[in-house]
């Protein structure tokens, strides 16, 4: 059986979540491996949530936020961007390929971008195979 990765997506309420809705409204198909959790801002995503997801067996973690300069809460996406860079380093030190964590800017109008990015990410994770932390 082919490998079907498990991916958690944290989507900010104002841009990425609305972008995912837009993909739906436009009926753009993308893989169902990614299951979203809505948070108010990408700045809310604690480094612990990401590590926690991998510990629980996720093969990848996706974070969607507003474009730089467009954050509904002024600067939360910049915090998220820095935090992701930090967690990437941490992950690779712990034996998890940093490509398993991805952050993307998706605006409320970019349904197409959301679908494309998710498709790419799922392909990428499929190539990488199951996470080494998977039980």
């Amino acid at each position, binding site marked *: 059986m082919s490998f079907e990765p498990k991916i958690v997506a944290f989507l900010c309420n104002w841009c990425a979540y609305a972008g995912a809705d837009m993909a739906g409204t436009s009926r753009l*198909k993308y*893989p*169902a491996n990614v*299951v*979203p*959790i809505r948070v108010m801002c990408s700045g809310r995503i604690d480094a612990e*949530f990401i590590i926690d997801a991998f510990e629980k067996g996720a093969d990848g973690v996706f974070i969607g936020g507003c474009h730089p300069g467009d954050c509904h809460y002024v600067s939360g996406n910049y*915090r998220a961007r820095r935090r992701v860079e930090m967690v990437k380093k941490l992950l690779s030190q712990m034996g998890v390929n940093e490509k398993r964590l991805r952050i993307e800017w998706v605006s*409320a109008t970019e349904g197409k971008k959301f679908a494309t990015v998710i498709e790419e990410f799922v392909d990428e994770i499929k190539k990488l195979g199951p996470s080494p932390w998977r039980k």
Partner: protein
Amino acid sequence: MARRIGVFICHCGINIAGVIDVEKVAEEMRKYPGVAFATTYQYMCSDPGQNLIREKIEEENLDAVVVAACSPSMHEETFRSVCKDYFSIYRCEMANIREQSSWVHDPEEATEKAIKLLKATVEKVRENEDFNPIMVPVERKCLVIGGGIAGIQAALDIADAGYKVILVEKEPSIGGRMAQLSETFPTLDCSQCILTPKMVMVSRHPNIKLLSYSEVIEISGFVGNFNVKILKNPRYVDEDKCTVCGDCEKVCPVIVPNEFEMKRAPRKAIFIPFPQAVPSTYTLDREACLGLAPLTCAECRDACEADAINYDMQAKVIEEKVGAIIVATGYDLYDKNKLVEYGYGDDDDIITSLEFERMLSASGPTGGKIIKPSTGEEPKKVVFIQCAGSRDVQHMPYCSSICCMYTAKHALLYKHNVHDGEAYIFYIDIRATGKGYEEFIARVMEEERINYIRGKVAKIFREGDKIVVYGIDTLTGKRVEIKADLVVLAMAIVGKKGTKDIAKLLKVAVDDGIFLKEAHPKLKPVEALSRGIYFAGCAQSPKDIPAVVAQASASASKVLSIISKDKLEKDPLIAVVDEEHCSGCGVCISVCPYEAMQRQPNGKAKCIEALCEGCGTCAASCPSGNIEMRNYKDEQIEKMIEVII
């Protein structure tokens, strides 16, 4: 903590049930811990659907509800208002199994994902706590950005209702594009004649503060309490003293192109855009002026008997607090230089629709006379080209909505001016959907004997004193060649230059970088995604004057629903510091974009309720995990992660 959770799964007709096996999802959820009841229904948002939820809350003694249906942005409010009669609205959550599952996945995987989404939502609602909304005071004023017909109408509606409006216009006068038009379709009303009374009403209205020649440079805060900074550019003429006698203009030695006339006519460095301008005053164009030092040239100042000219005037930053904002920044024509196939820019006799509009205007550069710009003669053959840049994947893919109508008007007015002239219109389709529009098109086609050619123009080039238009008539399949005196391009409409900058200040999205994005294309067409910000006019999409006016009034009524109250309910889902364990490191204080996190005398951090917007950046940054986001607690999110995986 909820112990008896009810799960309600919507079919949404076949939108959900046509893909997702809703019965299987319900079956699965019945087995899930804490779920006391699960059912499906055809349309959960309908009256019977809502009643079903009410009935089951009572019958099954439910203490929380999860509705699996469309996006929470559609119906969260609907379902929460149902639950409000029984318990806190935070005991109702939605699982988005339509936009984010049935519409984007195949049946089997969509069903699996729906189950995961539902389980995660059940986990969230289980740990949600009850909170009452925080009440915050409302600044009972509105900011309107843009003084075209959209901004004018919105400002007047709000001011008439008894509330203060600050109307900001970038140009020296309000009036916008409508002031540039000659007649309006389909009734051929004189555009200025119907607009200028409204402009005067704006200037006289005690509730409207008009800031012309000004720009919004900073916006912060949230619905009910926006802080706005407006830059008032110096016009070097005292608005109150200027009598519009025109003595300054006569003596000014500088001649530059006149933007109001689409640069097809000159103006002086000191100018009034058009005679009916509001505010009624001259403006000195700093860029064009020889220098604001009286030693260089002080002709205008010396000529001014009213002593209105002041070279020392400075730019001023004005700060205002408002409760709501309307964006009505209007449109520009598509960049003409990009239409190389139509030879624009190379030839004086190929002009845009707005240039032709100015030519038709009695107050325009030709006094209403239609001329061939290169020679000043009367053009005997004119070709109008619709969809110049619109409905074209190489330029703008959308329909600009108003060009079919104004081109018909242009051709008609041309024939009324030049009785022996011939007019040709190249079109793709004729879209005449407004009231009286189809009849107008029929009149132009039949009575005025305008030649409509269905097809696109391939190429335009000059041959001697004529412009050759090469096209195809797709109805006969024959090639068409017309030797014209004048060509008028109905250019595509794009959001006004600077729309993106305003959108950035307001944190609102822009569709493909062109038009402001509304909260919902059908049901929230004038609202931005962020509460308290509304749109009016062509900044949101191309539309004709009646639609603009209707949208402006709609925005005004939305604004009134906010600023007519003393207080506004604010989401209580904010950050809370565990003071006992706070080490006082101050990281949260440094990351908070709203200065809501403040240090107390004891060194510990505290969240100020009224300022916190609930983004959660502080909670994610706290090194000791001592900040809790109400109903987005760490434990909730971690539990959601668990059930998803």
